[in-house]
């Protein structure tokens, strides 16, 4: 098995902030918008260096999405920043009409996604955003797993023409992907090679999948682990290649099983290679207050849950 070293835990939102800062220095077309959450989104460095290219919108997310769409008319590449809940559900029709249907080159950057937002509770813990965004024609949907990957993704999406939803989070998590990685939209990353079960994970669940693979290995189950940072367009070739080898699959995500990564994977498999699948995801429920670790344990979104799902799906082969 390959060994992955945590080079120092950080929050993925800081990866976004670092990527945005670099874009501020390298791409004059990039502008940033925020709805009263500069600190949470780690945007201060970009603002300090490019005050004329930053737009403080206030607590008015619908207006932010419209202004972002308008800024593209004139050649700007707007990056909007707020929590995932306010980046999607609150402004769905604005994104649908003014950005997606209008084909505008807006990058919707969403922090504090999922349960790991923690103590603020369910009002802020959106678990439906991947589904909302992936249903929009032309929308690219990315959910990054650590600081380095989030930074690389932030930089990469500036060069992609078209709307993008970039999802990341609040908590400090292991940073284990290479600092110098080249982020390729729509290209899965093979993390472990195995023969007995495929584990496809996204976001914070990728590290948990690596931990689960170690445990499974001790139990005599070898896992193929794939980091699927891009949920749309989905790298179906990588998934199909793996399940043709292993014969079963676990998908893992910090999202409702309805509308998430697991459903996208299931669709591809049902069309091309029907395969037993287990879903590590929330089970059509809202979250609640608690620490991130408590919540991920209670709602079954950690390495233990992945191990159990893998053991179950192997028996279904």
């Amino acid at each position, binding site marked *: 098995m390959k060994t992955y070293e945590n080079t120092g835990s950080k929050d993925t939102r800081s990866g976004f902030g670092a990527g945005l800062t670099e874009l501020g220095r390298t791409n004059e077309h990039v*502008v940033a918008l925020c709805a009263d959450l500069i600190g949470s989104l780690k945007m201060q460095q970009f603002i300090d260096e490019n005050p*004329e*290219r930053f*737009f403080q*919108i*206030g607590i*008015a997310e*619908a*207006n932010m*999405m*419209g*202004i*972002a*769409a*308008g*800024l*593209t*008319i*004139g*050649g*700007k590449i*707007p990056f909007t920043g707020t929590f995932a809940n306010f980046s999607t559900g609150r402004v769905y*029709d*604005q994104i*649908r*009409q*003014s950005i997606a*249907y*209008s*084909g*505008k080159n807006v990058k919707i950057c969403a922090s504090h996604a999922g349960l790991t937002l923690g103590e603020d509770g369910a009002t802020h813990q959106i678990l439906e955003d991947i589904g909302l965004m992936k249903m929009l024609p032309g929308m690219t949907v990315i959910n990054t797993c650590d600081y380095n990957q989030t930074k690389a993704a932030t930089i990469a999406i500036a060069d992609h023409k078209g709307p993008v939803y970039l999802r990341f989070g609040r908590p400090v998590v292991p940073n284990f992907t290479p600092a110098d990685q080249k982020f390729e939209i729509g290209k899965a990353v093979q993390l472990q090679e195995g023969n007995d079960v495929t584990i496809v994970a996204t976001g914070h669940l990728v590290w948990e999948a690596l931990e689960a693979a170690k445990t499974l290995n001790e139990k005599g189950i070898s896992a193929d682990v794939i980091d699927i940072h891009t949920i749309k367009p989905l790298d179906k070739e990588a998934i199909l290649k793996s399940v043709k080898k292993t014969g079963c699959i676990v998908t893992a995500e910090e999202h409702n099983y309805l509308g998430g990564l697991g459903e996208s994977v299931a669709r591809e498999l049902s069309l091309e290679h029907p395969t037993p699948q287990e879903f590590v995801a929330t089970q059509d429920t809202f979250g609640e207050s608690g620490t991130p670790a408590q919540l991920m344990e209670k709602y079954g979104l950690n390495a233990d849950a992945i191990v159990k799902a893998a053991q179950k799906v192997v028996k279904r082969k």
Partner: protein
Amino acid sequence: MADIQQLEAFVTQVRRDILRQVHKVNSGHPGGSLGCAEFFVALYQEVMERRDGFDMDGIEEDLFFLSNGHISPVFYSVLARSGYFPVEELNTFRLLNSRLQGHPTTHEGLPGIRIASGSLGQGLSVAIGAAQAKKLNKDKHTVFALMGDGELQEGQNWEAIMYAAANQVDNLIATVDLNGQQIDGSTDKVLDLGNVRAKFEAFGWTVLDIEDGNNLSAIINGLKKAKSLSGNGKPVCILLHTVMGNGVDFMMHTHAWHGKAPNDEQLADGLSQNPETLGDY
């Protein structure tokens, strides 16, 4: 200024285009379209500084955003007759595979359209973004927007109105089509808008009224005055007092023709009131 009589003739033809578009497909929105025919003609034929051809970024030219997208028939007619696409294409309004969708969209690549609209309340925010992009690009041109009065019931407008004043978006002229009508009746009865002038002024806008919003000279003078008022630290709002259905007597002063097409007889009646001037498509 262009000869007013020529512009009147242009308006008459636009009215014919509106009626014929919605009649052919037995759907669409003639009432608000007719009420704004003079405004669109004044804007595109007299007021806006436009470049030849169409480029999405619209650098070094004035831009226009239609927020109340359901009045697409007047928008399409004036765009076509201003050279953005062939006038004959008005024949395809609302048909399958057409670039002239029920509500305007960039999706089919129709020249002249820079944003999809139809779901109300979104256009002003987009216009603000485009105006701020112009400032970043050091482009001195103006961004125009049109909203319906009923549309002001959408909350996003007030986010945008607050933002534009607070951020001194003074290269923006937003017009409200005050025809006093919406689908379920008069705006007073459905949800009273109150004093729209006082509201815009309280938010920090410069406001001017065009009392006869169906009089070409009054509109041109008002738009030019608005342009002269821009660049002074405040966004400018024009309250355009129009008559819904203007120019077709049986469609005037009622919300009944908001989203209803004339039948054959009614079409003939409407066309007889507006003789062909520039040539039907």
